[in-house]
């Protein structure tokens, strides 16, 4: 494979039918009217020289290289800013044009290094362009005023700004604004002194979020990945999918070398990627170094007790230990004494084989996935309402939104690439309602201002959503036709919700949302045009998470905001393959495709194919496993790529469960916190080594392709097959594509999926079947998957986690841009430059009486535990609510979170913990700071 160079058409495509026939250099081409002459020429196979134009940005017209002559028009207009009109005749190579172009190129070169490092390494377009335009000498000489001696800015850990190579084309500035929407870059000064600057400071101290869009947009070496400077230009590309959040960005992994010598030079977002369309964030673009971090484990290891040192063993021995251990436990404690947890970070194929191993080899349904602790209420709630456990739209749908209702999600930190798309739509005029206790960036940031910020008190979501529905129903704003035609009889619900106890006035004291503000927001949602709901874990991770999901579905059904572009109910999935791991039957009560284990017809499919009898009873959920372990009936656990000891709530309880088990098998890249309690460690593969598929939040099945072979000698799906085989249930596949073939043959929603089809289509959104051979971007058009929509009666039930004298504050948790979940990956990259430790945000009104100032180390205590972290006094949180992230094991925020969970799915109530915050003594502070320093030092 060679390096993929995507064609650059210079300006974005214009929507519309081909209706302008133009003649360019004698070639005729028909394009949608309004298409730039530059793009039309490229489509006709004519390369007009350009520097400031690139097809991801609006035409700008500054470089003046793409000049052309248009018959009947004056002068030499820039082809990038000249729209095609029917009958236009264009010349791109007239004598006049060629002369001006040369003159412009000569000016560029008069302020460009003669020995440009970028040109030398092939990362700068200037030399090629000079050749194309026909400039070999610079008549101005090189003694003139220039910017060649300006110092470089190397403060950003991932890229360098070399001003001597900068041609001030503003592609970076525009990418930062138009694509990323951060507006960190600008041009400073006038005339010859015009220079690119990240707001007058250095890159690291600036507003820059390191999304990499500017670096990608730069046509010269001025903005370059440091890895390119260090390693040189890549020689081949592998199209693959990011392994961080649920956006599922497509990347070109650009690589040097082959086989085990392969080295990733950079990750370049793929323009044709369905989810990201060429954009990226700091994690996917730059934070891949963990895959080659020295902490990475490459050998199987065992030990008899968790107090012992690890011993490296052969794969055979490790697998034998696991198989024999599990069988022995089953012999002594029963078939249900063991189970497995699959990972939402792994591929569909890897997850599928884990549940198959559990159901076929373990002979029980004790398989769960980490989606249990994030989006299980989404699956439950949307399944109840619409009949399928997934979001209703594709990401592109937001382009058609007029109103966005964002609930309990912080996309600019947690789903940055989608957030950029959302912000673009907001800049175009869509309005956003933010329901979140925290003043997140989308409440107010450059060129974004929420129409309404509803600071809903943690734990009162259902009261809030009911009040929204109450306003819509009692003010007659609901879509009666939609309810009649598309939903089950909603009269019970309508009567329920019209009750005065749901009015904004009645619930304001509970939710903390002023009644008038809520009424205005409800009216906007119901009457503002296409309205799309986007939500995150601030909805699901509550004792009423499932109820809240159904409440949001009710809002959409009430207002008819379903079944077309620009509307819908959209969970923003936390991990790359949360959707996929759920689709693959990772839940203890259902088989692939969300089919309950009690269904004989479905079991029969697998019974026949696998040659076993699948248990018709639900298995244990993750928290049930812990409870049963503590209770002595659950003895062995296989954990695939999830750090339950750090990520699951009430760490003390999790640890005591792990200690109660006789065989804990951890399959991971690193010796994570959970591995401290493991008896067998099986080294896993990073996404750079995986071959398979991930399914993102929009149900998009993306291919993950290996950049290099597994350095451990085994792929993860092979390990699982080997364990099952060693347990006496032979499982083998020649290739991961065979696993997908089995999935497709047994799961109706995946019927049309194969690696071959995915390779041909790029990606597909399930359901993919005979009715939708290319997939289904928008669901529930015409009718719901379950037929008629179901409006559940959503009673508000307050959480039992209440504040009081001992624990007067509410703690809620979230993510930050540069770190990812428990930080296993991002902490092992330079991303920690921005966020080296977890920070507790606390309102001045809460900080002052406690004597807390920004920078103080504080103790955070709940009824289950206590931990330390650094405080930041901030008005982003309302009084009474404190906030932190959970990225760093030094703090381990889940030490304080409780066993409370969603009533329906047992998704933990991470978002509500009653806590107290106190300043610590100088000794404790010193100890904390030392442990942060040690942790930082050890992973960098």
């Amino acid at each position, binding site marked *: 494979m060679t390096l993929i160079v995507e064609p650059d058409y210079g300006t974005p495509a214009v929507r519309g039918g081909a209706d302008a026939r133009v003649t360019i250099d004698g070639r005729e081409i028909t394009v949608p009217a309004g298409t730039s002459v530059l793009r039309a020429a490229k489509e006709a196979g004519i390369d007009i020289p350009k520097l400031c134009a690139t097809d991801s940005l609006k035409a700008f017209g500054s470089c003046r290289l793409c000049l052309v002559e248009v018959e009947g028009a004056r002068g030499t207009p820039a082809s990038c800013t000249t729209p095609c009109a029917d009958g236009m005749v264009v010349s791109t190579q007239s004598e006049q044009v060629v002369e001006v172009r040369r003159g412009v190129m000569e000016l560029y070169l008069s302020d460009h290094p003669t020995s440009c490092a970028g040109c030398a390494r092939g990362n700068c377009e200037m030399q090629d362009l000079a050749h194309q335009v026909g400039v070999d000498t610079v008549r101005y000489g090189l003694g003139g005023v220039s910017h060649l001696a300006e110092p470089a800015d190397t403060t950003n850990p991932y890229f360098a700004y070399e001003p001597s190579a900068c041609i001030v084309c503003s592609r970076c500035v525009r990418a930062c604004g138009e694509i990323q929407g951060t507006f960190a870059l600008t041009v400073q000064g006038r005339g010859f002194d015009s220079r690119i600057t990240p707001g007058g400071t250095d890159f690291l101290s600036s507003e820059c979020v390191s999304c990499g869009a500017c670096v990608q947009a730069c046509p010269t070496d001025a903005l370059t990945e440091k890895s390119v400077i260090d390693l040189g230009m890549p020689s081949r590309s592998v199209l693959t999918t990011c392994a961080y959040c649920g956006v599922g960005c497509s990347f070109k992994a650009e690589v040097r070398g082959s086989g085990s010598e392969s080295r990733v030079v950079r990750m370049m977002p793929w323009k044709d990627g369905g989810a990201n369309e060429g954009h990226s964030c700091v994690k996917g673009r730059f934070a891949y170094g963990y895959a080659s971090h020295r902490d990475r484990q490459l050998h199987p290891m065992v030990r008899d007790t968790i107090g012992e040192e690890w011993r490296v063993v052969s794969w055979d021995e490790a697998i034998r230990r696991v198989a024999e251990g599990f069988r022995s436990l089953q012999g002594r404690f029963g078939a249900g004494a063991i189970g497995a947890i699959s990972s939402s970070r792994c591929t569909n194929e890897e997850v599928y084989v884990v549940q198959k191993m559990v159901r076929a080899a373990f002979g029980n349904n004790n398989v769960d996935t980490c989606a249990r602790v994030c989006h299980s209420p989404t*699956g*439950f709630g949307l399944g109840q309402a619409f009949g*399928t456990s997934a979001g209703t739209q594709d990401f592109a749908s937001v382009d058609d939104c007029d109103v966005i209702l964002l609930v309990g999600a912080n996309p600019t930190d947690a789903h940055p690439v989608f957030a950029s798309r959302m912000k673009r739509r907001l800049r175009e005029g869509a309005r956003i309602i933010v329901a979140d206790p925290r003043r997140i960036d989308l409440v107010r940031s450059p060129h974004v201002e929420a129409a309404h910020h509803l600071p809903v008190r943690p734990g009162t979501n259902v009261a809030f959503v009911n009040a929204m529905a109450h306003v819509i129903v009692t003010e007659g704003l609901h879509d009666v036709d939609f309810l009649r035609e598309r939903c089950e009889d909603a009269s019970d619900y309508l009567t329920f919700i019209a009750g005065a106890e749901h009015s904004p006035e009645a619930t304001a004291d509970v939710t903390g949302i002023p009644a008038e503000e809520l009424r205005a927001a409800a009216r906007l949602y119901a009457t503002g045009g296409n309205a799309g709901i986007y939500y995150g874990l601030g909805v699901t991770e509550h004792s009423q998470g*499932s109820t809240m999901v159904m409440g949001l579905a009710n809002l959409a059904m009430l207002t008819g905001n379903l079944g077309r572009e620009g509307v819908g109910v959209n969970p923003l999935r936390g991990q790359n393959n949360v959707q996929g791991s759920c689709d693959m039957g990772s839940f203890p*009560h259902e088989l692939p495709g969300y089919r309950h284990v*009690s*269904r004989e017809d479905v079991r029969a499919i697998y019974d026949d194919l696998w040659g076993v009898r699948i248990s018709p009873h639900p298995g244990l959920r993750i928290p049930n496993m812990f409870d049963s372990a503590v209770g002595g009936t659950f003895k062995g656990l296989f954990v695939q790529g999830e750090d339950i000891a750090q990520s699951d709530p*009430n760490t003390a*309880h999790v640890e005591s469960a792990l200690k109660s088990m006789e065989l804990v098998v951890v399959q991971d890249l690193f010796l994570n916190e959970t591995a401290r309690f493991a008896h067998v460690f099986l080294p896993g593969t990073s996404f750079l080594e995986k071959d398979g598929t991930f399914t993102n939040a929009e149900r998009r099945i993306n291919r993950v392709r290996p950049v290099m072979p597994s350095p451990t000698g085994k792929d993860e799906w092979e390990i699982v097959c080997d364990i099952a085989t060693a347990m006496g249930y032979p499982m083998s596949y020649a290739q991961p594509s065979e696993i997908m073939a089995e999935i497709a043959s047994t799961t109706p929603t995946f019927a049309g999926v194969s690696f071959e089809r995915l390779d041909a289509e790029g990606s597909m959104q399930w359901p993919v079947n005979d009715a939708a051979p290319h997939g289904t971007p928008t669901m529930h058009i015409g009718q719901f998957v379950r037929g008629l929509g179901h409006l559940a009666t959503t*009673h508000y039930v307050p959480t039992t986690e209440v504040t009081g004298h001992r624990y007067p504050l509410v703690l809620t948790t979230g993510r930050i841009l540069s770190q990812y979940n428990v930080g296993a990956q991002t902490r092992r990259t330079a991303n920690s430059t921005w966020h080296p430790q977890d920070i507790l945000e606390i309102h001045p009104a809460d900080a002052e009486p406690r004597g807390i100032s920004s920078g103080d180390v504080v103790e955070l205590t709940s009824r289950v535990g206590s931990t330390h972290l650094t405080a930041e006094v901030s008005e982003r949180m309302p009084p009474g609510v404190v906030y932190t992230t959970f990225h760093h094991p030094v703090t381990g925020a889940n030490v304080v979170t409780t066993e409370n969970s969603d009533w329906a799915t047992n998704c933990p109530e991470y978002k509500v913990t009653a806590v107290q915050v106190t300043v610590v003594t100088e000794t404790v502070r010193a100890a904390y700071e030392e442990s942060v320093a040690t942790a930082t030092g050890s992973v960098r």
Partner: protein
Amino acid sequence: MSGESAVIRLGHDLVRNFQMLPREQAATEIATHIAKFWEPRMRHELMAHVRLGDMAMHPLLVAAAEHFVDHEINRGDLREASG
């Protein structure tokens, strides 16, 4: 952490979410939910509490558990996409 057993805690979570319904309907809903999502040994543990006459158990949870023993669960309910 309270000394309450996990199945009782989870059962009471269900009680809180269904207790506003008419008693019989609430009991059915809770029983259905348990049938759909609880591993059998948790169900058995809950039944053991009923048999022992655990005074900490909410009457509705007891009713649901008895309901579960007494009545056949409607298999049709299980065919719904279950999440």
